């Protein structure tokens, strides 16, 4: 018989890891789901050719002339033109089926544009239509210009989105992976069984957080690689910096998850609490669009959310190639918040 050393912390860590990777659902939600989400959102927001402008022309003697003028006046053929009865045109404009309606010129009146100036698409259509009609009426542009369109990786929506998904996963994985699992152990009375042994209690909580850290590494690699391979996502920062930032986020959310789960006695309770805590961050932390869109009164709240700080740091490091030291303040904030939550959780923890 081999004499082997048995030490609590490594055994507890092994217990956490095995319980995770032997559970196919847990593996899917941690690794499969974010890839799937990246792919779906990436496809939904991929760069499309410029939108075409739908123009309705009121039927009448001058209608065909307007159609011809539009075609002649725009080099890229940006217009989809339809000729309809006047009422039909107005109806379609109201419903948003066309962006602008043109009434051809008559003997009494010049041509008229019917459009909604509060709608960006409609206002844009008016500018383009007018430009085309003026040009084919003989307007000459005094200034010669040159177009240089940009579709460079790094400035696309998907590039903004991928660090967001990574942050969302670090949050969800930490909160569910620790909060839910802790309550499950409590419901099973396994926690009670463990404290009936001489196990050091702090070792147990450390193993929960430590186990979570071990899952973070593949999580980061999987999501970023999916972005690189599928969408040519540009990683400008160093991997070490990225890992440091992600670890700080993971520590923070592990602490928050443990705190949320420290008293709950039912799985339903902890699921509800986790959603309540995560909901404001999904909405306000700039996952899908920049936090600068929120009004100033909301900004203190928005900036206090740990996910906001994590996403800012992730984007700065990944997209802009920022260094870890440039992110010292948000990272210290994350670590401090996680540490405070961990200490409170240890204090209030319900073992039985």
């Amino acid at each position, binding site marked *: 018989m081999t004499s082997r050393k048995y030490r609590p912390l490594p055994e507890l860590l*092994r217990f956490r890891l095995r319980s995770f990777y032997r559970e196919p659902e847990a593996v899917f939600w941690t690794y499969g789901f974010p890839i799937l989400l990246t792919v779906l959102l990436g496809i939904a927001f991929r760069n499309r050719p410029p939108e075409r402008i739908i123009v309705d022309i009121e039927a009448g003697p001058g209608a065909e002339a307007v159609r011809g003028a539009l075609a002649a006046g725009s080099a890229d053929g940006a217009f989809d033109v339809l000729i309809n009865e006047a009422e039909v045109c107005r109806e379609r404009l109201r419903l948003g089926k066309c962006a602008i309606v043109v009434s051809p010129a008559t003997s009494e009146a010049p041509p008229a544009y019917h459009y909604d100036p509060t709608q960006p698409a409609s206002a844009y259509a008016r500018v383009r239509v007018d430009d085309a009609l003026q040009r084919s009426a003989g307007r000459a542009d005094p200034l010669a210009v040159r177009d240089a369109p940009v579709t460079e990786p790094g400035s696309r929506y998907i590039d903004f989105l991928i660090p967001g998904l990574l942050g969302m996963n670090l949050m969800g994985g930490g909160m569910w992976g620790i909060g839910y699992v802790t309550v499950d152990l409590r419901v099973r009375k396994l926690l*009670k*069984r463990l404290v*009936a042994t001489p196990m050091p209690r702090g070792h147990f909580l450390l193993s929960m957080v430590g186990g979570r850290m071990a899952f973070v590494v593949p999580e980061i690699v999987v999501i970023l690689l999916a972005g690189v391979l599928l969408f040519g996502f540009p990683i400008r920062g160093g991997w070490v910096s990225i890992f440091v930032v992600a670890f700080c986020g993971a520590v923070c959310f592990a602490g928050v998850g443990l705190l949320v789960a420290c008293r709950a006695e039912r799985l339903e309770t902890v699921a509800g609490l986790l959603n309540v805590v995560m909901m404001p961050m999904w909405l306000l932390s700039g996952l899908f669009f920049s936090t600068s869109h929120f009004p100033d009164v909301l900004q203190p709240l928005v900036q206090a959310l740990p996910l906001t700080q994590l996403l800012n740091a992730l984007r700065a490091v990944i997209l802009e190639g920022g260094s870890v030291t440039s992110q010292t303040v948000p990272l210290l904030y994350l670590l401090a918040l996680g540490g405070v939550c961990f200490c409170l959780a240890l204090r209030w923890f319900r073992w039985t």
Partner: protein
Amino acid sequence: MDTTPAILCRDLSKRYRQRQQAPVDALRGLDLEVRPEECFGLLGPNGAGKTTTVEILEGILPPTSGTVEVLGRRWGHDDRALRQRLGISLQETRLADKLTAFETLCLFRSFYRDGSDPEEVLATVGLSDKRDSWVVNLSGGQRQRLAVGCALVGQPELLFLDEPTTGLDPQARRSVWEVIRGQRQRGCTIVLTTHYMDEAERLCDRVAVVDEGRVIALGTPAQLIALLGGDHVIEFTLDANGDAPASAADELRRMDGVRGARRTNNTITLTVAEVHAVLPAVLRRLEARGDRLAWLTTRHASLEDVFVNLTGRHLSNDQQEVPTTA
């Protein structure tokens, strides 16, 4: 031999306070003394307070009042040192589903300074062939034996087993009993709770009968059965209705050699010292009364009879309450 009691508790009470409900007095002045190296049984029906008692003894639950000494020490300072010497199996623990039996034992082994090799423990509880099976894939009996194995892996001086065989089939129960007997022989002190009278009779050196948070009888199984006045039971059912069974019970109770009589509906249970002397007389008396027998059996008296005698109720819930005739 060490003579300090393995467990000593005095006037233990426990009140559970619940939100929006009346508080429950689970223990009302319970005293216990468990001697070193004995197998001590707490026998009582569901809700008697057995689990509450052992969890207080195990230091998991604080008592509302009363004193507890375990292995000569009290809970509250250096608890981990005391836990090193205890082995515990809770009434209801679902061990981690996706660990194997062996991994589970290694986990529990790691919490103890000294302990057994997990492989040996697997052999002790008869799970060597299930070494690499996940806990989810074990049967109820195998899981229970693994739970007992987790209690043994620290080589405890004192072992607590809360309802170790509840819900198991007869074969699985016997294999758990074998494990417990083995520990008893090793010199381990065992505190066992059960609501099966046969389990207490077979395994325990001494039994405390617990009901409504108190010890209502204490002694070896033989001593407790002797409380009945006789260690045989004659039980029969009358094919009759109306008052006949009640008056028959009253009449038989006064007969020579009958130490006790009680009635459940048409069934009468007599406690007697000598079946061969009493049975013919009982049959003659019934015939003389004109009562007809539907069924009759004789057996050794059990702790179940002791419990019914003391409380008027049966140990397990699936039998009905006994109308008062005693």
